[in-house]
């Protein structure tokens, strides 16, 4: 009798699993076709010559790792991420906390900070040229103070301009994410803390920050992804070969594609994939252990 029941249960489980697989199949096929296969092709090409005809072993990887422009681009990209993402997170959190403190009155500020998101990249580039050009508005202002004109976009200040562009464009978006996180923290917690004599800083440190932990992970991840999009601005502002300080991985990939160095692009992409995937896997593993 028990054996019969087990068999029925197994059959039911198998049927349910079959149904689940049937539902998953389209997305599995889509992922295989549009993600797994291209990645497999990318890995294959990274071991082949330019147009994928002959196997060349690790030659492409060695070439890429020895390439000074690759190292420069990796350095610049990392520097940009290290500078921008913490700066953006801090600034957006600061503005979010300020605006949430203003309650209804903060709407005007919220809208103002969100406006850059609605401005098309081409318009931003045009505006930036008007401001940062060697004969632009900024130089007109600095000239009044007796300063020499500076080519802000093509000179050593290019990195600062790019960081400013990124922060200016993404500040509003991150602020909204933080505001959503802040709204999920109950007011009663703050009231209870104040009754116990906690000050503003203590409330922020012991209630707000722990309450925003999940939001922080999400905001940081989205900021990281958005940072890759900054290449559009860099490219439109300064072209294929910008000032060395803003020469990013995307510039290199773009130029390699132009000269048909597909093999180098593939090898560099695999290296990047590893650079991102390995820490993520380690982090997941650690998270798994913590749960256990």
């Amino acid at each position, binding site marked *: 009798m028990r054996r019969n029941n087990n068999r029925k249960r197994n059959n039911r489980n198998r049927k349910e699993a079959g149904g689940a697989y049937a539902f998953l199949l389209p997305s599995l096929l889509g992922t295989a076709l549009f993600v797994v296969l291209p990645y497999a092709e990318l890995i294959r090409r990274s071991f082949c010559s330019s147009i994928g005809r002959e196997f060349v072993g690790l030659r492409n990887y060695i070439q890429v790792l020895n390439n000074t*422009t690759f190292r420069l681009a990796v350095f610049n990209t990392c520097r940009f991420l290290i500078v921008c993402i913490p700066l953006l997170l801090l600034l957006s959190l600061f503005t979010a906390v300020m605006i949430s403190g203003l309650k209804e009155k903060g709407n005007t500020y919220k809208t103002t900070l969100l406006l850059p998101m609605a401005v098309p990249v081409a318009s931003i580039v045009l505006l930036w040229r008007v401001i940062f050009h060697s004969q632009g508005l900024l130089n007109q202002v600095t000239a009044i103070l007796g300063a020499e004109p500076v080519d802000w976009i093509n000179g050593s200040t290019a990195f600062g301009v790019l960081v400013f562009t990124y922060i200016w464009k993404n500040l509003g978006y991150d602020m909204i994410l933080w505001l959503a996180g802040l709204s999920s923290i109950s007011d009663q917690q703050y009231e209870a803390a104040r009754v116990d004599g906690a000050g503003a800083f203590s409330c922020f440190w012991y209630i707000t920050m722990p309450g925003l932990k999940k939001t922080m992970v999400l905001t940081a991840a989205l900021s990281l992804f958005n940072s890759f999009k900054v290449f559009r601005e860099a490219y439109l502002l300064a072209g294929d070969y910008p000032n060395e300080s803003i020469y990013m991985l995307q510039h290199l990939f773009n130029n390699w594609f132009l000269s048909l160095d597909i093999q180098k692009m593939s090898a560099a992409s695999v290296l990047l994939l590893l650079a991102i995937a390995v820490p993520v896997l380690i982090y997941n593993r650690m998270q798994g252990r913590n749960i256990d």
Partner: protein
Amino acid sequence: MKQNHWRKRITACILLAAMTVLSVSGCGNKTQDESKTNQETTSQTETSGANANQEPVAKGRYVEHKIELPVDEDSMWILDIVKSPEGNFQLFAKDKNAGGPVQLYEYNGSVWTLITPDYLSKIPQNIYISHIAYSSDGIVYLTYRDAEYKEKLAKVSDTADFTVIPLEEISKDMITNLHVSKSGILLSLMWNTMVLEDDGTVLRRLPHKSAQSDNCFSFAVTEDSFLAPGDQGFIRYNEVTGEEKEIIPYQSGEEDIYGSLAAAGEGEDFYLCNSAGIHRMMENGTIWETIVDGSLTSLGMPSINIKKMMTGSDNDYYVWCIENEKSNLIHFTYDADMPSVPSKTLTIYGLNLSDNKTLRQAASLFQMANPDVKIEIIDGHSDAGGISVSDTIRSLNTELVNGKGADILVLDGLPARSYKEKGILEDMQKIIGEMIESGELYDNVADKFYEEDGAVYQIPTRISFPVIIGNEEDLRHFSTLEDIAQYQNANPDKPITSKARYENILREYANLYYTELVNPETGQLVPGKVKTLLETVKTLGDACGAKVIFGESENDGRLNAFGFDQGNRIKMSGIYDLYGGSRLISIEMLNSINDMMLPYSAIDKRGYSMEQLNGSYLALGMLGVTSTGKEKETAMEFVRFVLGSQVQSSDLRDGFPVNPEAVDQWQEKTSEYSVAISVSGSDDYLDGYWPEPERRQELLGYLNTLNNPIILDGVLMEMIINESKGYFEGTQTAAQAAAAVENKAKLYEAEQQ
């Protein structure tokens, strides 16, 4: 209940299977039986060749034959070719030197016969006839210029004397066309067509677009309408009332006005002949029906100018066109056995092929010689919808990587070095070697494109070279950039260049001295040379009054003449300023013998000397065969064809030949073309005529001495231009600007490692 459930499942499965079978049956090749059925039902569809398994091939296409003309145009003028009321073609001609009476030849479908109708003797001999038209009752109407170059209209017939029809309203307008219809005489002027009565009374005027020259035959008279070119398309007028009935959009665009219209016989249908072919517009139709594909015939050749189209009696067409200042009469007939569409397609891709006349000429001639081949020329820039050059190259690279690229690449502006290294280009040594051996290619030119291992991956189809003109003493100071700067510094009051933007001077001198600037072997900047270039340009610019940008008020409020952006094109010509005394020398970038007509005039008048500059030349239309193409063999044949004397002998003003045999034909070529410009502020003028044989020999002789090809790297050029702006604006020193260029160039070079 359970049984019902199973029944539903089985029915669903059957329906699914049926649907799958039906869907799949639509895919794949047709079976042989189906082909047979189609063959029976479609008379024009046959299997080609002996292999019955091949796909059926639709047959039937217009083919062309050249009709030999009865006159030698070296000694005779062809006045007009018209269709007589009896339907025969008649050619009116006149002796160029002796004058004499008008001669008339009639074509009976195979031979021309000289005929002498009575009216010919009545036409005065001292007039120059421009247009001739018959009325339905056989009266000949003609327009001409009299001894005082006044436009006149007259009529004559066997039974009536030569009578001038008074034209008081014409004044100085030029007559561009003549038709005779049931409502009167239609006399087309520059901006309108006058409908006249037989006594010269103007019945009405029909406005149209400027006909611009008497080569414009885009007018036609159908049964009830008169067709003329307008702004939006051809205007159809009611011939009797003059009312505008409709506007028929142009087939190719406004350039259709340089085509020719012809009525299709009875009714309102008419034909248009342009470089895209012969097209028919049905009565009340809205879409042009292409009858003859111009790209498969000589109509698509850039050397051809269509003059007049006429219809035959058997659905055939005659096109009178001009090539190299000589008339051709081409007869288009329908060949029912010719495949409608060629079986092979050869694709040629380049960044900017819309202006490449040599390639288009070669494509037309090759297709005529090989009717089974269709050549598809892809202009990368327009094909990509006008996106940036870099993005256009990226789209091309995507195709090349996927093995779907063109068979032939025109490598101008493309990363040829990279393609060569990546194995995209096929070795053409076999055909190039053979051509050099047989004397069909200049070895001094071809040698420069041999790789160390003996392979040849690219070869130019045309070349353009600079000559320097001025006093003999001055010409000795132009071998290097340093020499030029020194000489200009020594003569600060005598500008070497004409007034222009610094950027334009920079582009010109960077182009001319490119091999001094960039190592041809490695493609890398020669250290220190950028600074020299910038300083030289600054010196030259300061002497001629150059600026970074010119305002609208520059040049006495006229157009911003010195400020145009000429891009990387080298369009140097300073002969006018040299002759006028405002510059020391002139550098002419020559593309054809015509380009030397005015310079030779200046040389004659002022006793200047001329030298070729450093053996340098621009390699134009660089061809490479792709290793991924499907038609490699045909592609190789085509490259050989382009470099052959048949194509190279055409002077399309887009460069000199690379083929010595073709140069011999250029040497023999004569022209009646002339040009003159006056020197402002004086009665003096430059008048250019076709150079004498000795001069042509001198000019074409330079081709043997050219050994210094300029093959621009667009990326490096843009770096030089962009990074040097600060120097010319005064915000940087030459050393700083040169360092910025060199830094970026290093980045560019490092990417390739």
